[in-house]
Structure formats: structure tokens, C-alpha cells
């Protein structure tokens, strides 16, 4: 889980500040800014479909980052993340519809409400770890799913609930082109917060809890506090992601937040790299594009013998489901450190080219 850092020889840090800096070189910072600027220009030349995929990466990436803080940085496992994501979606829609809170405030409020629910289910997390926690969160997933189906006042029951589009000063973010900016801003802000969190005392404490909880406790880290806190942060991110999802689609149905969705979140962070913030984004993008790739693959072989033998056209849903599971297994067996690690290796390779060993 702990990623091996690839630092070129002779690159010695002389202060803590330079060791924990977000951008190690000026070039890397400029590239990051360039990337965001390029994304800002996306709605001008991309069609609806691609924009909707990018928006999906936005809100899913936020929720996945929360899960990575819990699983990758604190070493706690959760199989109920989609339930928290769903809770955030319903909470935001409910706050807006029933309490009349404006959407711009309902989204953070949903985050806070989800945090409270997360802390409630995180109470066993404070006492349990590893496998037992996995089972506890599995139970949380089913209990919350059941709650969604039953609580008519909150979720609209089986009929689902309608969420108003986000409106700021009379300007409604109700199309893909407009909402893209909301998702982008939220994504950048949430990622910067997480990156900075990991540079603080609290963030280092979380990593210490993951690496060796006994040593961490001896060093004066309150395990219960940090485990619970990590659960809360993770739920907060899930809640924000879910709220964005609700106001993007403008409709939330109770059926979407299944265990398969939770596993998809876990898949994102495993593919991206546990304990890597940028990796989370890569993993999310991978997971979002995977069904598209499957679709393209099906189109490619359509009409051939493989297609007729497997009847791909009617079974594309199962193919997608299977590909999720397969990708998770293959990554765990062959690249357990995820895409982030692979990316670092590629960078290191080109840095030393052509004299790498």
C-alpha cells in the first residue's frame, strides 16, 4: 500500500517545507495550472456526451477521494461508500425542497449531514479494524439502502426525489456546459483541501495510524479520534460528491446506490493507487471510461464470430460489470500500487532517457 517514492539521486531536501511541498518543481506547478486552464476551455469545443463524462469524473472523483483518505491514508476499509454518496444526494435535495435552503448552501450542508451519519456508522470503526470494519460497513450499506427505500419524507420513497439545479444570483447551472464549471471548481477545491490536509499534523497522524497503529499510539496519537475523524472526512467528501450528483441530474432515485457502486468506488482508488491523491483522479477517470471502452470494443467486434457467439449486444451490461471485477483483480495482482505508481515510473524513465538502466 505504501508507495515507493522514486526520487532521483542527489536530490536532497534541506527543510521540512521543501519536503512536503505540493509541487516539487516550478514546471510541475505550471503544468498543473495549464491543465486546469485547458479544462476551462473544454465546454467550448467538446460535445455534450464527453462533457457529461467529465462531469461524472468530477463528482465521482470527489467521493472517491474521500474513500481514499479513509482506505489509502488511514488504512480503514469501507464497503459502504455509495450509501454515503446517496445520503449526500438525498440530503441536499431534501434541504432544498423541504427546508428551502438555497442549493449553493444545501450542498455543503449535505456534506455536514453525511458527516454526522458517517460518524454514527464510524462508531464501530473506532473500535474495529480490517476485516471486522469491512463487515460493519457492509451492514451499513444495506441498512442505509433500506432506509432510502423506506423514508418517504426524506427520499420520496421508491418514486425518488427531484433536485433543483444550482442557482447563484439568478444564474442557473442547468446545462452540461454550465455545470461543468461547477464540477471543475468543486473538484479543484476539494483536491487542494485534501492535499493540504495531508501536509498537516492531522494528515500525518492518519498516515501513522495506517503504517503502524501501535507505534502511532505510543507517539501520542489518539487512535479512536483519528479513526473516527477519518470516517467523518470520508463521509463528508462522499456527501459533497453525492450532492453535486443530485443537482447535476436533478433527480435522485433510490435504486442507484447499491453495493456494486460501492465496489466501483473501491475499484477507483485501487486502480488509481491507495494513498495517492492524484491517483484517485486517474482511477476515477479509468472507471468512468471503462464502460465506454467496453462499448467501443463491442462495436469493434460487432458482426464477427465472437459477437454472434457471445451475443455481445444484449449482454453489454454484464460485460461492463465483469470488466469492473476483472480490472480490480488484475490491478491487485499485477499493479497493486496503481496508476499513480506507474505514472511515476514512466516519468522517471523519461527523465533518465536514454541512460536508464
Amino acid at each position, binding site marked *: *500500500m505504501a508507495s515507493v517514492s522514486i526520487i532521483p539521486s542527489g536530490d536532497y531536501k534541506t527543510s521540512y517545507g521543501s519536503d512536503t511541498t505540493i509541487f516539487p518543481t516550478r514546471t510541475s506547478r505550471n503544468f498543473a495550472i495549464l491543465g486546469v486552464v485547458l479544462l476551462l476551455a473544454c465546454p467550448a469545443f467538446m460535445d455534450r456526451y464527453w462533457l457529461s463524462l467529465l462531469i461524472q469524473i468530477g463528482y465521482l472523483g470527489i467521493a472517491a477521494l474521500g474513500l481514499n483518505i479513509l*482506505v489509502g491514508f488511514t*488504512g480503514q*476499509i469501507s*464497503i459502504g461508500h455509495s450509501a454515503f454518496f446517496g445520503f449526500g444526494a438525498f440530503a441536499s435535495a431534501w434541504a432544498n425542497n423541504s427546508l428551502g435552503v438555497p442549493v449553493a448552501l444545501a450542498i455543503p450542508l449535505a456534506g455536514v449531514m453525511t458527516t454526522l451519519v458517517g460518524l454514527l456508522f464510524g*462508531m*464501530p470503526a*473506532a*473500535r*474495529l*479494524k*480490517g*476485516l*471486522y470494519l*469491512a*463487515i*460493519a460497513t*457492509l*451492514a*451499513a450499506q*444495506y*441498512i442505509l439502502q*433500506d432506509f432510502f*427505500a*423506506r423514508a418517504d419524507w426524506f427520499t420520496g420513497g421508491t418514486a425518488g426525489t427531484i433536485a433543483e439545479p444550482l442557482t447563484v444570483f439568478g444564474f442557473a447551472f442547468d446545462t452540461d456546459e454550465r455545470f461543468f464549471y461547477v464540477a471543475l471548481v468543486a473538484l479543484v477545491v476539494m483536491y487542494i483541501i485534501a492535499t493540504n490536509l495531508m501536509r498537516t499534523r492531522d494528515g500525518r497522524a492518519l498516515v501513522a495510524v495506517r503504517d503502524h*497503529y501501535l507505534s502511532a499510539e505510543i507517539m501520542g496519537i489518539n*487512535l*479512536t479520534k483519528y*479513526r473516527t475523524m477519518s470516517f467523518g472526512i470520508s463521509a463528508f467528501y462522499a456527501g459533497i460528491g453525492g450532492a453535486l450528483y443530485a443537482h447535476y441530474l436533478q433527480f435522485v432515485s433510490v435504486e442507484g446506490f447499491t453495493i*456494486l457502486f460501492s*465496489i466501483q468506488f*473501491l*475499484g477507483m482508488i*485501487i486502480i488509481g493507487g*491507495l494513498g495517492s491523491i492524484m491517483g484517485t483522479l486517474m482511477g476515477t477517470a479509468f472507471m468512468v471510461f471503462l464502460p465506454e471502452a467496453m462499448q467501443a470494443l463491442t462495436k469493434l467486434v460487432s458482426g464477427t464470430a465472437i459477437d454472434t457467439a*457471445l451475443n455481445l449486444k444484449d*449482454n453489454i451490461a*454484464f*460485460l461492463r*460489470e*465483469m470488466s*469492473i*471485477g*476483472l480490472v*480490480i*483483480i488484475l490491478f*491487485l*495482482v499485477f499493479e*497493486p500500487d496503481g496508476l499513480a505508481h506507474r505514472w511515476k515510473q514512466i516519468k522517471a524513465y523519461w527523465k533518465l532517457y536514454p541512460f536508464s538502466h
Partner: protein
Amino acid sequence: MTLLFQLLVNGLIVGALYGVVAMSFVLIYKASRIVNFAQGEFLLIGAWTCWWLLTSWQLPFWIGFPITLAFMLVFGVILQIVVLRPMIGEPIISVIMVTIGLSIVFQAAMKWMFGVFAKPFPPIFASPTVNLFGLEVQTVYVMSLLISILIMAGFGWFFKYSRTGLAMRATAFDQQVAQSLGISVRHMFAMSWAISAMVSAVAGVTVGVVNGVSSALSFFGIKVFPAVILGGLDSVIGAVVGGLIVGVLENMAHYLDSQWLNWGNMYEIAPFYVLIAILMIKPYGLFGTKDIERV
């Protein structure tokens, strides 16, 4: 009152099946410390294989069933060697995720091959119901209870008297010591998966005969968690007791719900509330060893 009694009997019968599945889950956990989230898919694969042999090949049950068991044996061994063996020594999150990934793959593959709708087994018994203490009970239910008891007794004998069973217990107790006594730990791991897959398949076929085969079968793999946590993760007896309790409990919750509460869906959810409560109060369960780390 008859309804209550009927539900109690139902609970015991279903609970016995939970117990069997929980036992095969515990078997893998005890031997190799792997939590198998794909246990439910073993039921599914076993049931579909048997169904396929019986309907497509028109084999009689007494031939098709042993073939199914043989297939599951090979399947379990191959699965352990190909997927789980490389995961030895990896952190617990990775191992859990691999079995979750497996469960998704198998479930999707089964839906792909056999469709999403429940399909009935060809009838196996001549008379559909028998009279038991003045209560009309389906023959398959009685058979399933008998099979469950038989498997449990078999497990008991296997671990107490057979050479392999003793070797397996030794492996579960301490791998290094077992190895130094000439036990092949690799064989024991493979064997535990094979036996687990086989026993799960028996349960899968039994449920399939009663309710028809569909992907709903894999929910047994989820229901197993309340049972094993209740009984203690590493106790075979605990698994049986836990399974029985969960079976009775969900039927009682259903009764309570239908009579007074009217919340709906308690049958499915009640075990999970119990699960959370147990994890809070007594995480090592009724019979488990107390070595769980409390923080």
C-alpha cells in the same frame, strides 16, 4: 400460533442452510485467513452447473449431482492456485478486494450465461409435501434439513478423526509448526477452498431445488456475515449456531413486522442490525477466540 410455528420451522430449515454456508466460509477463513466475499457465488455456480446438467443434458439427479460436486472441487482448487495464491502476504484490504472482484465477475458471468430470471429445477422427489407433526412441509425442505445435518456431522467427523482434517486444523493453528511436521500447507489451502466450494454447491443446489435458481442465491454469501460474526469468525460450531440463530431471527423479525410494526423488509435487514450490535458489544462472537485487536 400456527403461523409462528411455521415460521420457526422455516427459520430452522433456512438457518441450517446458512449454517452450512457459514461453515464453509469459516473453513476457508480458518485455514488461510482469507475472508471470502465470493462464498455466495459458489452457491450460484454450483446450482447453475447442476441445473444445466439436469436440463440441457437430461441427466438424472443422481448422476448430475456428483458431477457438479466434482466440478466444484476442481473449480475451488484452480481458483485458489490461480487467484488467491499470489495474494499470500498481501495486506488484508487487497485480499478482501480480490474476493469481492471475483464475486462480481462470477455473478456477471452467471447472468450472462443463464439469464437474470429464476429457473425452476426439474422435480426430484415424487411427492411434493410430507406431513410432519401435523404440519405440511415440502419434501425438499425436509431433505435440505437432513442434508445440512449430514454435512455438519461430516465436518465434525472430518476434523476430529480424519488425517487430512487434523492436518488442516494444525495448519489453521500454526502454519510454520504444521509445515515442520511434514504437512503441505499449500495442499491444505487448496483443499480448504475445494471443500468449501463443494459444500457451498450442495447448499446452492438445495436452495435451487426449493426456490429455483437465480442470482438471488448469491445473497446467501452476504447473509453469511451476520451468522459468522455472531458465532465467532473462527469457530465451526459457532458458524452452525450463528446460522440457525440468524435463520430463526429473520423469520421472527418478519413475524413481528407483519403483525405489529409494518415497517416492511425486516426479513432482509434485521440480521444486519444484529450484526452491528454484535460488533459493538462482542466482536469475537459467541465461540470465537478473543484475539481480535480492540482499539
